[in-house]
């Protein structure tokens, strides 16, 4: 598994994000949601917009007509074009979690890391809708790191 160092932990506080570019010119957004790190492919499956530059907000639910409540404030990413919403922690679409998903990457925190991998590219199709890629993120000795060579929560 190759990894992509992002930044020291203190440079990415809760509610903030960083855009990084992996080898192969893959743009990835790294988010701190309530102290945990998540990485998403910076492409919306709808119209290929730079998803990770969208607004970060809470999840809105309702118990019935006229009632609306927002839960949290930093878990939902809203695409800057057309407003499709995705859960940053899973890459799943809010409106259609079974069919639409962003690619995620694992993120770690490390002392130092070198990025040597070619990384993942492309989409993971699920049923009739394209998917969004997510990546695992780790923190090792103070550095936020995206893991590139392994798909995360992609099925």
């Amino acid at each position: 598994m190759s990894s992509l160092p992002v930044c020291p932990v203190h440079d990415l506080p809760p509610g903030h994000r960083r855009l990084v570019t992996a080898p192969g010119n893959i743009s990835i957004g790294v988010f701190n949601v309530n102290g945990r790190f998540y990485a998403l492919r910076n492409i919306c499956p709808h119209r290929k917009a730079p998803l990770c530059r969208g607004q970060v907000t809470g999840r809105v639910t309702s118990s019935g007509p006229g009632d609306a409540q927002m839960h949290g404030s930093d878990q939902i990413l809203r695409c800057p074009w057309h407003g499709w919403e995705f859960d940053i922690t899973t890459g799943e679409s809010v409106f259609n979690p079974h069919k639409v998903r962003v690619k995620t990457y694992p993120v770690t925190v490390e002392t130092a890391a070198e990025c040597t991998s070619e990384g993942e590219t492309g989409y993971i199709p699920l049923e009739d809708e394209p998917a969004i890629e997510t990546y695992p993120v780790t923190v090792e000795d103070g550095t936020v790191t995206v893991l590139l060579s392994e798909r995360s929560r992609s099925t």
Partner: protein
Amino acid sequence: MSMHAPSESEPAGAVRSASCFTLVDTDIHHCLAGTSDLLPYLSKYDQVRLKQFGTGGTGDPYAYNGGIHGRRADVVNEGKWVEPGSNISKVVHEHLDPGGFDIGILTGQSVYGASAIADISYAASLCRAFNDWTIEHWLPADRRFRFCMAIGTQDPVAAAREIDRIGDHPQICGVLMPGGAPRPFGQRFYNPIFEACCQHHLTPAIHFFSEGGGINPAPTPAGYPGSYAESRASRFTIYLAHLASLIYEGTFETFPDLKVAMLECGFAWVPSALWRMDSDWKGLRQQTPWVKRLPSEYVIEHVRFNSQPVDEPPRRRDVEQLVTWMHGDQTLMFGSDFPHWDYDDPARTLTELPAPLRQRVMADNAAEVFRLQPLEALA
């Protein structure tokens, strides 16, 4: 106003006049003995329009209709004007029988304007009277008749009381809601109507009318159409506004058993409405989080559209595509608009559709949404 002291030379009590007059009336209403008095002063074209439309009255946008006063010329009696739709025998023998109909839903029209009256008590009285008149004279006349009862939509509590009063009549299948309204029908202001409809297993049926009349705003957001053709072209916006309101206000979440019919709405606009609402819901869902499903899913489950005036693509084979796009096997139903001039003949309408789909459109969808059964089964 200038003031000046009385002159020493004027006699006591005398009023100084600046004109040679002592009394002026600024408002005397003269009028024509009949509108035909204007004929010698009009062009030939406008003479015809005067005879057909009159002088415009209070500006009713439906004054300018097609046909003869909006009616089919072939069913209008010669000589003295008689509403063809007021003649039970004519409706039975010149429409139900030759058309081969098993059921004919009476939707009225005489008191559609009641929903636009500011005097809500009078509006309720008119609707109640029209309902009782229909129940006494029309419903016993033919077992095929069903009825969408009249209500005044501007007073939902009174409307609900009227539905409670007669809604269990076996031939009443719906509640007619004229499309003209100061607020769209999804707003919870109208919930008493929908609640009563659900209790009595009746279907609200939205039919355009009285937009721009009485208490209602202009027929379009851009104002008043200048001609009847123009009003027809923009008419779907009335239905679209009510449909979007019903979806986004969550009416079908509040009333899961509610079905809604849209009458004389045409249908080519429906695919566009479904696609637009679905697309926008994906991005704007957080503004109406009570809308749990795609808008099109609510429409397919809850809303039915009447086909008249039928949309006619230049290539007739495109009709099936259009109907498929709107999920017409579940959402489209036939209506003739008898005795109006833009009547659709059941034998010649939507014949482009394959037989199973056409069966859905000509009978099954209406039977489901209005919960229609033979009268024997209802007894």
